[in-house]
C-alpha cells in the first residue's frame, strides 16, 4: 500500500475507533447537498471507464454515472469531486467516507457485497477476465500459459481468478503482482511478463491507450470469469443506495424508451405514461427517492441514456470500438434490463 493507501487506512481505523455510533448516521444525500458536490471514486486512469486528459477533465462510462448522479441530485453534472483510487485504495476510501460513490470498474462479488461494508447498486458493464500477450508469443490460448509469469495488479478479483483458473487446469502460474496500475503496465510492456491479465474491456483500453504499439499485442480468445462491474455505495444509508441504483436504472430505461440527450426535453409531452414518469411530466418518481420530479430528466440531458454513454466512451464513438455484446438491452439480446420506473 502506498502513502495514500496508508493514510486512508489509518483514517478508517481512526474513524472506526473514535466515532460513537450516531455521529456518522448523517445521511449522504444531506451531506452531498450541503457540500454541493458528489465525491466520486474513480480509477487512476483507464480510458473509456475513467480516464483523465491533459487538462484534468475526466471522461468515461464510470465518470458519466457520477455526472448523472450530480445532475439528478444537485442539478449540475459538473458538481463532482473526483478521487482517483488504485485497486487497493478503493474500498477503504468508500468505507472511510472519502467518497460517496465508488464508480470504478469494480466487480460485484459476494465477499465484497457481504463483508466489506458496502453495497453494489446495479451493473453498468458485463465484463470477464482475459489475457493479453505480445503478438510473437508462443501462446495462442490461455491454456498454453501454464508456468508463465503473468503481470497483474493487486487488490483485484483478477488476482484470485488467475489462480482458480490454472488450478482447475492442474497447472501453476507465477503472478508478478504490482500495487500501482502504471508499474504493472510498464513491467508488462518492457517484456517482464509473458502475459497481462485483467478485465477484457480494460485490456482493450490498455492496448489502445497504453501500449507503445497497439498492433504488437493480441488478446487471447478465452474469458475466464464473470466480472459484472458497477457502482457501489457505503452500507447503512438506504436512501442514497436507492438513488444511485435507480439512477443507473433510469439511464437504462431511457434507452429502452428511446429517450436521448437530444430529444429528452421534447419527449416530456409524449403520450406514453412510462416516458412521462421518467421525465417528470407524469407521476412524480423523484419524490419517493427524496429528489424532485425532474431528477432523471436532468441526468439524461447531462450524459445521455445508457446506450449513448456506452457508444460515446467505449463503442463506435470511441477509439476502443467495443461491441455492445452482453451490454445490449435485453430487448436486443443483451443483459441490460432495468426494473420498471414506476
Amino acid at each position, binding site marked *: 500500500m502506498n502513502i495514500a493507501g496508508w493514510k486512508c487506512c489509518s483514517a478508517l481505523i481512526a474513524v472506526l475507533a473514535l466515532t460513537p455510533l450516531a455521529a456518522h448516521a448523517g445521511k449522504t444525500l444531506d451531506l452531498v447537498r450541503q457540500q454541493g458536490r458528489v465525491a466520486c471514486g474513480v480509477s487512476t486512469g483507464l480510458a473509456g471507464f475513467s480516464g483523465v486528459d491533459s487538462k484534468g477533465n475526466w471522461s468515461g462510462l464510470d465518470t458519466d454515472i457520477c455526472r448523472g448522479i450530480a445532475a439528478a441530485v444537485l442539478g449540475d453534472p459538473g458538481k463532482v469531486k473526483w478521487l482517483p483510487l488504485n485497486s487497493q485504495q478503493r474500498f477503504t476510501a468508500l468505507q472511510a467516507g472519502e467518497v460517496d460513490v465508488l464508480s470504478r470498474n469494480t466487480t460485484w462479488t459476494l465477499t465484497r457485497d457481504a463483508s466489506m461494508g458496502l453495497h453494489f447498486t446495479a451493473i453498468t458493464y458485463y465484463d470477464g477476465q482475459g489475457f493479453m500477450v505480445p503478438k510473437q508469443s508462443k501462446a495462442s490460448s490461455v491454456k498454453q500459459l501454464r508456468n508463465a*509469469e503473468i503481470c497483474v495488479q*493487486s487488490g483485484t478479483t483478477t488476482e*484470485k481468478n*488467475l489462480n482458480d483458473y*490454472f488450478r482447475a487446469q492442474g497447472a501453476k502460474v507465477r503472478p508478478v503482482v504490482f*500495487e500501482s496500475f502504471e508499474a504493472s503496465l*510498464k513491467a508488462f510492456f*518492457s*517484456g517482464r511478463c509473458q502475459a497481462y491479465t485483467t478485465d477484457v474491456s480494460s485490456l482493450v483500453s490498455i492496448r489502445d491507450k497504453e501500449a507503445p504499439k497497439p498492433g504488437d499485442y493480441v488478446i487471447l480468445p478465452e474469458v475466464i470469469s464473470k466480472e459484472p462491474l458497477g457502482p457501489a455505495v457505503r452500507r447503512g444509508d438506504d436512501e442514497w443506495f436507492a438513488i444511485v441504483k435507480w439512477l443507473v436504472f433510469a439511464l437504462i430505461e431511457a434507452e429502452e424508451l428511446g429517450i436521448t440527450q437530444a430529444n429528452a426535453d421534447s419527449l416530456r409531452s409524449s403520450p406514453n405514461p412510462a416516458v412521462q414518469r421518467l421525465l417528470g411530466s407524469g407521476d412524480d418518481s423523484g419524490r419517493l427517492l427524496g429528489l424532485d420530479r425532474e431528477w432523471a430528466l436532468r441526468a439524461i440531458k447531462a450524459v445521455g441514456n445508457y446506450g449513448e454513454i456506452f457508444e460515446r466512451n467505449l463503442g463506435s464513438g470511441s477509439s476502443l470500438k467495443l461491441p455492445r455484446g452482453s451490454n445490449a438491452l435485453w430487448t436486443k439480446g443483451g443483459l441490460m434490463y432495468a426494473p420498471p420506473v414506476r
Partner: protein
Amino acid sequence: MRRPFAEFRRHASSRAFCYQLLVAGLALALVWLLVEQTGAELRTRGIRSGFAFLFEPAGFSIGESVLDFDAAQPYWRAFLVGVLNTLRVALAAIVLATVLGLCLGACSLTRNVLLRGLCRAYVEVFRNIPLLLQLLTWYFLLAEKLPSADAALNPLPGVFLSKSGLAFPWGGEVPAAGDFGIAGGGAVTPEFLALLLGLSGYGAAYLAEIVRAGILSVPRGQVDAAAALGMTPLQGLRAVVLPQALRLMIPPATNQFLNLTKNSSLAVAVGYPDLVSIANTSLNQTGQAAECISILMAVYLGLSLLTAAATGWYNRRQLRRGH
C-alpha cells in the same frame, strides 16, 4: 502510632511502582476500549472482523517463495511466506550493504584523491535520491535492458541472466531453457534483484558515513602506533583501528539495519511479494483492513525488537572484550 499510608508515601520505590501500574492499567484499558469500539463499529457497518480468516484458504498464488506455497493453503501460511520473503531480501541486502559500506567508508578516507572523490560522490548521490526512485530505476533498467528469457545472457556456465531474473546452479541442479524461460537450479527474480540492489546501494551510502565517522573517532596516535610496529595501512586498519571503531559503529549501524528492513516494504512498488504485498492482497481479498494492518505492525515491531536485541547482545560482548 504507625501510619501505614504515610510510610507508603515515603517509600519512593513502591510508590513509583504503583504509579507505573496505574499508568499501565490505564493504557491497557484504553487499548481495550479502542479495540472494543472498533469491533462494534465494524459490525454495525457490516464489515467482517476477527482473525478467523487466517485459517481459510488464501486462494491466490505467490510468485516466489522460500516455502512451498499453494493457493489452497491458509492465509496464515501466506503471511509466513511474506515474512520469509521480507527476511530473505532484508538479510541479503544487509550483508551486501555492510560489505559495500565498509569499502566505501574506508575509501572515503584514503589519500588517493580520485578514489576518495568517487566514493564521496557515491555516498552523496545515493543518500540524496529517494529510495523509491532508486528501486524503480533499478527495476525498469533490469526489465527493460536485459534480454528476454529465450535469449538469456549466459556469462558463466549454468548462469543465466534475463528479464525473468538470475538463474544459477543450486542443489546439484543446473538451469536450462524451459517452456517459458529458464527452469531448474536456483533463481531469483528481477523484482528481488532490483530490491536487493536498491536497498543495499542506499543502505551502503549511510553505512559508509557511519564507518567513516567510526574510523575518524579512533585517535590518530593509534594509527601511528600501528605504523610504528611496521604494519601496512591495511593491516593497521584491520587489527588496530576497526576493532576500536566497531564499538562506536554498532549502535548507528543497528539503526540502519532496522531502516533497511523497514524500507524493504517498498517492495510492492516493484512487484516483489514481501510481507506488505501479501498483507495488501489479503486485505483486499478479505476486506479485513484492521486485522491485516495490525499483523503487519506486529511483525515489523517484532523484527525491530529482535534486531535491536541481537545487536545489543553483540554490542555488550564487544564492550566486554574491549577491556
